[in-house]
């Protein structure tokens, strides 16, 4: 948990201030039973009103001091835990934004979200609890023991019997409880997964009339959950009353021994009451300590998951002095003997010996079956991933020399799945170029055939998009994503099969527009349909991670068997 060190440095002093106030608070709490005992033994028993009033005042003053200490400690602990949570979230978020795709793939996106939300909350709660109760509990426990022994060493013998039994019960409780609750958790996961699966496949279930089957599956998981919950709760049901009973037996013992002491005349009645109060205090602090321990186990697991993110090594390095030249290069994108595998050395190659170069102004089409490596190929250009061997060059420079930020400035990409962000359409378009004026954005939207439908919205460019652009159709999202890329005025434009929801006419017009404005732009276009790329300057045919053909449409039709097959499947004599 090395990541926690820096926060310790930052918040350490507040922590110690909190400790001071907690100690003060605990001290005040510990004084209470003694003061009460004095009021009863001396004041009430001795019928001294002055003494009662005097000690009553003292007691209220002590309470007030304790309350002030508690309030200060409360403010400090709230601020520290919340601020720490905020820092942790912020740092984690920045770290995630800086992770390479290889790392993100490994950690899984959904789990990154839970780490930044649930896990941080877990730690935040623990820190707050720590500063609030867990410091106080040991103080109260030890202080209570000292006060009790001080009050009457003879009665303290009872403590020597009761406290170990309670500790033993608590330990047993945790030992038995943990595995049982893990079983409950597993059963719950099972119920949830049956449900999730049903929801995801509801159309299939309905289409095939398989309700009985699904209900059986659910009933089984449901029964399991009920059974494990009942077992767990029932096993635990014994411990609460057990601990209370132990304490109560202690109280009976104290009263008995105390009674004998009173008869002998060497114990005062008030002392017995005070002693019982201390006993209750000790017991409660023991229970709180065990609760803190529980919280610690949970927070520890969370800290582990957060640590995993923080300890991701930055795998990307670059030469800080390296810059892209404005000109003087022949090829804007070059692949030289590039091999790539997602799992690194030894895992299955996704790209094999890729050799490809594209000139400025060239329109390059990429086609091939699913899994042939089309997207992977273009992801190497902005250095989302790094080649296993060989070189990827942008404008004549090896991408590994370049700061990814500089590199990505000249590249615009439209991903396969149009990802838009909540905010207005304008905000989304501005992603391409922060500070771009309206005219630029509109021009780009026109090129992407998006202006007309955007203007048709009541709020036009100010239309707010929900998360992921839910209120737009697939085709509209794709066109906004294309416009966003065009706003950037890139040197290299990558279109990753991003026109699938557009009809052929719209697609053709967008392509034409791109060609016209961008005589110096290298455009790489991944497509499913041959019609999308048949007029490209160069078509790359990928099959199984290998380039099996490069050339113009007519050339490939003549000599590339894979391309012929694709052509046939789209235009030929299928189904006949």
């Amino acid at each position, binding site marked *: 948990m090395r990541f926690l060190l820096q926060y310790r440095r930052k918040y350490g002093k507040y922590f110690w201030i909190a400790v001071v106030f907690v100690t003060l608070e605990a001290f005040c709490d510990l004084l209470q039973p003694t003061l009460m005992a004095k009021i009863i033994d001396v004041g009430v028993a001795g019928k001294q009103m002055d003494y009662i009033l005097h*000690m009553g005042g003292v007691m209220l003053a002590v309470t007030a001091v304790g309350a002030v200490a508690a309030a200060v400690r409360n403010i400090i602990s709230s601020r520290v835990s919340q601020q720490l949570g905020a820092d942790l979230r912020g740092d984690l978020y920045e770290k995630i934004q800086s992770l390479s795709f290889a790392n993100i793939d490994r950690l899984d996106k959904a789990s990154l979200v839970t780490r930044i939300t649930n896990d941080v909350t877990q730690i935040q709660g623990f820190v707050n609890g720590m500063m609030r109760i867990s410091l106080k509990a040991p103080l109260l426990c030890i202080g209570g023991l000292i006060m009790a022994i001080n009050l009457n060493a003879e009665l303290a013998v009872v403590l020597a019997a009761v406290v170990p039994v309670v500790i033993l019960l608590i330990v047993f409780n945790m030992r038995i409880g943990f595995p049982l609750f893990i079983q409950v958790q597993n059963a719950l996961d099972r119920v949830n997964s049956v449900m999730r699966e049903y929801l*995801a496949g509801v159309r299939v279930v309905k289409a095939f009339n398989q309700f009985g089957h699904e209900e059986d599956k659910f009933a089984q998981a449901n029964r399991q959950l009920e059974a494990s919950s009942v077992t767990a*709760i029932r096993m*635990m049901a014994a411990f609460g009353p057990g601990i*209370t009973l132990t304490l109560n037996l202690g109280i009976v013992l104290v009263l008995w021994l105390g009674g004998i002491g009173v008869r002998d005349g060497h114990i005062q009645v008030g002392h017995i009451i005070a002693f019982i109060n201390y006993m209750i205090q000790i017991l409660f602090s023991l229970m709180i300590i065990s609760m803190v321990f529980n919280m610690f186990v*949970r927070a520890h697991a969370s800290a582990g998951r957060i640590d995993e993110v923080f300890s991701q090594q930055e795998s990307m390095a670059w030469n800080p002095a390296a810059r892209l030249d404005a000109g003087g290069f022949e090829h804007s994108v070059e692949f030289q003997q590039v091999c790539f595998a997602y799992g690194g050395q030894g895992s299955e190659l996704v790209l094999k010996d890729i050799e490809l170069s594209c000139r400025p102004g060239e329109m390059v089409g990429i086609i091939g079956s699913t899994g042939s490596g089309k997207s992977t190929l273009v992801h190497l250009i902005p250095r989302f991933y790094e080649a296993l061997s060989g070189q990827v060059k942008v404008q004549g420079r090896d991408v590994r020399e370049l700061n990814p930020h500089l590199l*990505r400035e000249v590249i615009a990409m439209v991903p396969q799945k149009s990802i838009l962000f909540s905010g207005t359409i304008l905000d989304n378009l501005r992603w391409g170029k922060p500070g771009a004026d309206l005219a630029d954005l509109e021009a780009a939207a026109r090129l992407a055939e998006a202006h007309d439908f955007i203007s048709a919205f009541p709020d036009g460019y100010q239309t707010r998009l929900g998360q992921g652009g839910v209120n737009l159709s697939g085709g509209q999202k794709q066109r906004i994503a294309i416009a966003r890329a065009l706003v950037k005025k890139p040197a290299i434009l990558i279109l990753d099969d991003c026109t699938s929801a557009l009809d*052929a*006419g719209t697609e053709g017009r967008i392509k034409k527009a791109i060609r016209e404005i961008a005589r110096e732009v290298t455009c790489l276009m991944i497509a499913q349909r041959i019609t999308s790329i048949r007029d490209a300057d160069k078509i790359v045919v990928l099959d199984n991670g290998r380039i099996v053909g490069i050339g113009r449409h007519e050339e490939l039709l003549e000599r590339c068997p894979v391309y012929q097959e694709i052509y046939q*499947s789209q235009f030929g004599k299928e189904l006949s």
Partner: protein
Amino acid sequence: MAQNPILGSPRTGGTFGNRGSKDGGKPRSFTGTLRRLWEYLGHERGQLTLILFFVLADAGLTLVGPYLIGLAVDTMGAAGGLKPFGPLEQLLLLLLITYIAEGGVAFLKSWLMAGVAQRVVKELRRRLFAKLQKLSVAFFDTHTHGELMSRLANDVDNVSNTISQSSVQLMSGVIAIAGSFIMMLVLSWELTLASLITVPLVFFLTKTVSRKTGLLFKDQQARLGQLNAQVEESISGIQVIKAFNHEDEVIRQFKTVNQQLTEVGTQAQIWSGFIMPLMNVINNIGFAAIAIVGGILAAQDTITVGVIASFVSYSRQFVRPLNEMANIFNVLQSGVAGAERVFEILDETEESADKPAARELVRPRGDVFFDDVSFGYRADVPILKNISFAAPQGSTLALVGPTGAGKTTIVNLLTRFYEVNSGRVCIDGHDIRDYTRESLRRCFGIVLQDTYLFAGTIAENIKYGKPEATQAEVVAAAARANAAGFISRLPQQYDTVLAENGGSLSQGQKQLLAIARVMLTDPAILILDEATSSIDTRTEFHIQDALKKIMQGRTTLIIAHRLNTIRHADTILVIEQGRIAEQGTHEELVNRQGAYYALYHPAL
């Protein structure tokens, strides 16, 4: 009763996003929902009465303890009890018995409650799931999975906590307050009066602070929702963020939301943290009042020291639940709100029941006929307008048109996932509403764009529509669907276990399995809803071949936007804005140079 903090409740671990319960603190109809929940406890009434008895006994025994301690203290003061088994020992024996009984009763109470609460939530979960089976597809289209999951998990969990913990706490709280108050009156009305001065303070404090914290916590929850949404969005879109060098921008956005959350969170925590120390002060003021008045009374010999000792315990037992009550009530409220959200689903309108005279559709031929059908998912937004067409037995009908034109809606009406607003849909000459839903659905085989496979083996998935099928039938179906090849290359072949939704299979392989699955049920009508759209054209080639085989002799409806999938259909319907714009064969439509021609012009 001291609640054992270690037991707590089994934490369910927040589900992703926590959507359903985000804004759900307050129930809409508290008593109504409570009454309904009570009905669910119906079979458990016997056990509940027993539990109630134990709660009463527990509270009663808890009240006896301090009284006996007071008596014991007084006996100690009295001289002359030097006998080995005097009044003190007798009292202590009584106390011992009381404590043991209390422990036993508390244990039995929890033991029984665990059973009742878990059975009730199990029943609630079962009914919820059973209900989901009866809801129409429309329902699933309008509710997100996250929301439904959250109702099953978080809300049901809330209900369970309410039943097993808050309700018992509330009962014993009320009993403790009432009992302590009576005991206090019995002991000394003067002291009771003195200790009551703290009650208005407690009320005032609880009310002010809890109103303040209530608002703050609500605000905090809303901000947390915002933060979660921002995180979810920016992590799922991280590729675009990086491609556009937008990291700093989203970090700045995050920091703003994060800062707002922190400020509200700090306020909320500080305010709620004030309650404990303030309560402590109030308790001690109460104690001081008791000591002073008690001292005066003791001086007049009206009461004994033992009475004061007991009184102190009772006044604590009286005030503490008062303070907790507000808290318990909040938990109770959120539990009832959870129950309400569960009931909301249970109250959803189900798919309409079959007509009483509905008959089985046996050996369907597959004659499909749409007669002047109009439909809208919402009554005021028509999707389909006056659609009429026929697809005779064994023919192939293709539906084309822009996204949103209503192609999938036609399929939804044919399968009765949705019901027509006007007009009728007929199969084999009879309105589909005259058939039982089950027999109707059995006559379709549907292959969707996004094939769903269930967790289980490949064989189980193929058998999904016909669980009784033999292994030989499965293998034959896979062979006819061109799936046998890739299955035989898998390590466990037909017994290969798939993760939820196919796991490592490619889209094309999943689609082949879906075709095999349909093949096995031997349907009269085949529906291919964009079945090959997310497959590249080369893989599609093999799938087309499989489809061609199953299409033989069946009425087939194809929805597609790829030309090659539709050009050989017997009839092509061009749907535009909910109407049939054109219909005819590929050649006829191309020659007409109308809507169809415009759609596919560049590809021709």
